[in-house]
């Protein structure tokens, strides 16, 4: 079994009209055994920037700690929050530093940039950025997620419709993947507020 599939994960981020949504599953497993159903994969960097980390749970935790440290240092020096594009470049650089002994993670970055324009991107485990205008996916359920998102996505959705779309895409995709699922965690971010919702899905 691949090391990326050791813990199991599913992540998706979608762009809407002046808003974005980022969602993950909640399972923490050790290969075939489920350890917990409340594992946190999406982390807030600042009010308008969220980071999701799929892949090996241990490396996700290490990477998250390193990135929060770097961002706090940036805030102290620059006296402002990092732009999502800048943060994505930072993550990419940190991952490529370990080119010949990488972190086994695939990050998904979602944020509101200048003028609250939504920004999403994903990258592979050595930092190759993939910028997208509509949606990005990561994790063991990524193939199902690509299909679900491609068919359900519409450009310029309002935040309520975006929430429905991303939730349905996530839940239907993780149902086809035994290593991810056990509920969902959705963050919906608009320029004025952040809404966090837990989805009830098939608990198997």
């Amino acid at each position, binding site marked *: 079994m691949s090391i990326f599939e050791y813990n199991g994960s599913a992540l998706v981020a979608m762009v809407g009209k002046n808003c974005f949504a980022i969602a993950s599953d909640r399972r923490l497993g050790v290969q075939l055994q489920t350890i*917990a159903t409340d*594992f946190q994969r999406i982390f807030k960097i600042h009010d308008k920037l969220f980071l999701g980390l799929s892949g090996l749970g241990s490396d996700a935790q290490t990477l998250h700690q390193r990135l929060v440290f770097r961002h706090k240092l940036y805030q102290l020096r620059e006296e402002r929050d990092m732009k999502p594009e800048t943060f994505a470049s930072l993550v990419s650089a940190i991952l490529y530093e370990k080119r010949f002994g990488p972190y086994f993670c695939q990050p998904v970055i979602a944020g509101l940039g200048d003028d609250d324009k939504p920004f999403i991107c994903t990258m592979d485990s050595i930092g190759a950025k993939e910028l997208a205008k509509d949606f990005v996916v990561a994790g063991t359920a990524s193939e199902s997620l690509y299909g679900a998102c491609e068919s359900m996505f519409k450009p310029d959705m309002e935040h309520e419709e975006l929430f429905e779309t991303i939730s349905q895409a996530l839940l239907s995709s993780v149902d086809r993947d035994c290593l991810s699922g056990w509920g969902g965690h959705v963050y919906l971010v608009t320029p004025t507020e952040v809404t966090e919702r837990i989805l009830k899905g098939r608990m198997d």
Partner: protein
Amino acid sequence: MECVFGMVGKGFALVVADTSAVNSILVHKSNEDKIMVLDSHKLMGASGEAGDRAQFTEYVQKNVSLYQFRNNIPLTTKAAANFMRGELATALRKNPYMVNIVLAGYDKETGPSLYFIDYIATLHKVDKAAFGYGSYFSLAMMDRHYHPDMTVDEAIKLAEQCIEEIRSRLVVAPQNFVIKIVDKDGAREHSWRRTTKD
């Protein structure tokens, strides 16, 4: 075939571990204590490679004491768990410790807590945790009978049910088990469940 498991109850946390020290087909001893008392209110049940287990648990215990000496205040359970995770993560890509840990602690402000720490340094706060082949049986038993805020008697009874299940269903089941408990009065050994005397 090492078995460690633990659960959180009302105002306490419990850790159970087998006490066999095995080398291939030989049982060296059946009273090996695998649950280390880190400080007055923390228990660390460890399973895995024998040398790594002893070395790592002692290393953590000494560092937890050092922190208390230096700073005149004990570490919280969460802090101790994160320290362990950090040590395991740093060693992971050099010389990994093959040790799985169930950390139970009691803090005055937050009450009892239980942490699951994998040998790959995956950390998660849980209500019930188990490692080893015995986990297939003990986790299933706990999933069925565990509920939040159990009393000590209920939790001990559940632990006994898990031990019975392991004894009857695991092919090379360990002979003896030790149960340790941590609550507001501190961390201490609760009882043993023996089938052989060593």
